[in-house]
């Protein structure tokens, strides 16, 4: 900056440095993992395995897209895993209850899906209003609602498991297991939501406002950003996306219990951070989150497909990768 006079005249588009670890780090990690996987097991790149990994990434992935917005705006939501279990439980109860009136076909399922989205909306609104109107820390609010949702689903299931009516399940099942052109529905929905999310983050006022609030709430407020409204919208969006994830989840096993969605919140947050979004807020990228989710699921897949390490150590390997991903991004900053 010292050379303002001379440098100023050269204020042209000279862009960023050619290689930015912060930008390509997650992509490199993903590629390395894919190469390792392919070398370790010939089935790794088979159609079946690729479909498995992508489809199971979908739930966390869809949630993590929403989480990207919340974290970018400087917030956090610890309740999404419990919320998913709660929505799944209620959705199953609603569908089972509708069987006598609507039958066991699509009308019941569509009603169940509508219910899932509505409950997700309401749950997100609940979190968001407490955070923006009652002005309680997001961490505390969602820690509380995490317990509330988890208890509610345990209570609804009487400590056991809620199972979807068998005939409804048979009709609903293809939503997870089938697809078009050989691509499973969860993958299609996940990628569509990720693409939309990326556009919203990068090319709409809402995405810009989230980043502004996350980097400095005061500045945002002085710049005519409706801070509370935008933050509330973030939590509601996340709630609705949890609903979408649940819609894809329920047909997989047709059941929900108190163990559904345990630790999903941490996986989603980890995926967001691995993807390069800043935990403190101010900068977020949805495509990075998608890569983060894939990295997390690939590690698990590779560990299952190979006998490299004791299964006791799976968690440790994941932990190391998460920390490494963040360290790589830090280093960039430190040299600035």
């Amino acid at each position, binding site marked *: 900056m010292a050379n303002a006079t001379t440098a100023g005249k050269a204020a042209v588009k000279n862009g960023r440095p050619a290689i930015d670890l912060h930008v390509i780090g997650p992509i490199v990690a993903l590629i390395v993992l894919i190469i390792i996987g392919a070398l370790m097991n010939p089935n790794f790149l088979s159609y079946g395995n690729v479909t498995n990994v992508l489809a199971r990434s979908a739930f966390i992935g869809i949630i993590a897209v929403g989480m990207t917005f919340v974290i970018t705006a400087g917030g956090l939501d610890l309740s999404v895993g419990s919320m998913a279990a709660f929505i799944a439980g209620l959705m199953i109860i609603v569908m089972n209850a509708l069987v006598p009136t609507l039958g066991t076909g699509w009308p019941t399922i569509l009603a169940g899906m509508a219910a899932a989205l509505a409950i997700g909306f309401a749950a997100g609104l609940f979190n968001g209003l407490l955070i923006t109107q009652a002005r309680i820390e997001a961490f505390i609010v969602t820690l509380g609602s995490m317990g509330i949702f988890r208890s509610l689903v345990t209570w609804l299931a009487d400590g*056991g498991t809620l199972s979807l009516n068998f005939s409804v399940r048979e009709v609903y099942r293809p939503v997870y297991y089938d697809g078009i052109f050989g691509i499973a529905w969860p993958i299609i929905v996940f990628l569509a939501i990720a693409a939309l999310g990326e556009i919203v983050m990068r090319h709409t006022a809402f995405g810009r406002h989230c980043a502004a609030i996350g980097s400095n709430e005061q500045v945002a407020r002085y710049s005519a950003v409706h801070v509370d409204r935008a933050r509330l919208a973030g939590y509601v969006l996340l709630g609705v996306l949890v609903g979408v994830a649940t819609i894809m989840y329920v047909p997989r*096993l047709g059941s929900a219990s*108190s163990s559904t969605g345990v630790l999903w919140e941490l996986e989603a947050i980890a995926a967001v951070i691995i993807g390069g979004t800043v935990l403190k807020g101010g900068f977020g990228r949805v495509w990075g989150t998608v890569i983060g989710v894939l990295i997390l699921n690939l590690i698990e897949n590779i560990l299952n497909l190979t006998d490299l390490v004791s299964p006791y150590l799976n968690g440790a390997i994941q932990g190391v990768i998460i920390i490494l991903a963040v360290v790589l991004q830090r280093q960039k900053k430190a040299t600035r």
Partner: protein
Amino acid sequence: MGVTNAFKALAVVTALALPASAAAQETSVIGVSIPAATHGWAGGMNYHAQEAVNRLEEAYPQLDFVLATASDPGKQVSDIEDMMATRDIDALVVLPFESDPLTGPVKRVAEAGKWVTVVDRGLSEDGIEDLYVAGDNPGFGRVAGEYFRQQLPDGGKIVVLRGIPTTIDNERVEAFQAALEGSGIEILGMEHGNWNRDDAFTVMQDFLSKYPEIDAVWASDDDMAVGVLEAINQADRAEEMWVLGGAGMKEMIKRVMDGDRMIPVNVTYPPAMIASAIEMTALKFVSNAPVSGRFIIGSVLITPENAESYYFPDSPF
């Protein structure tokens, strides 16, 4: 004590207990501390505990129960300390989350002169409890192993899903492996499915990708069996293998009863053992029946022939 004998003993004790004389006595407080319902089996166990407490409080006005569920060992220790400090319990029925962390606190309860009943998971130190009621974890694995041996006399390839890494899981798996010794059955892979449907689904998907040939699956738990079956169906390999779960979830018993090819049998590990333990402890305070000692409830093989007697459609598990 044999399997059936243990059951009989419990039945006798229970029968004695129910029509007991509700003589006006001093109120006794019995604390019950169990893990929270984090998976199917624990859910069933919670159900049976609550049910037993309700039933006994109704039958014996002089008994008072304090039921606490804990989501981790630390919380369970606090629960027990609270019971001692604020409820002044006369007896404690505890199903320890983990053996080691609970040994000290339970020992202090025993040292304070209280009656202690330990359920399912033994403490790390012998001689603390007055009454021990437990399932037979090595038996659970052995019975399953013997069935595999019988079904695959010429050997075969199987995969194993393990539970949450704990003593229970280790005992089961060790006994299972011991039972298979020399049978020519090859265990292709073992991974932890954490007694969770979703985790089991994922692990099984990856087993299916990894191994082109699998003859049978020991899912070692019915919750995990649900996820395993779903993954097998998805891969369209149902014709190739069968699955053995365990613990007697009602849906699985039903399938055994119906003669499902994929679920030929099941192995018991009754969550109702907590109810027996609570009943026997209650008996100590309402009668003079001798209730101390060790009661091991053995694991039995449920086959289409005997399945009906293990089918409880109203239980949550």
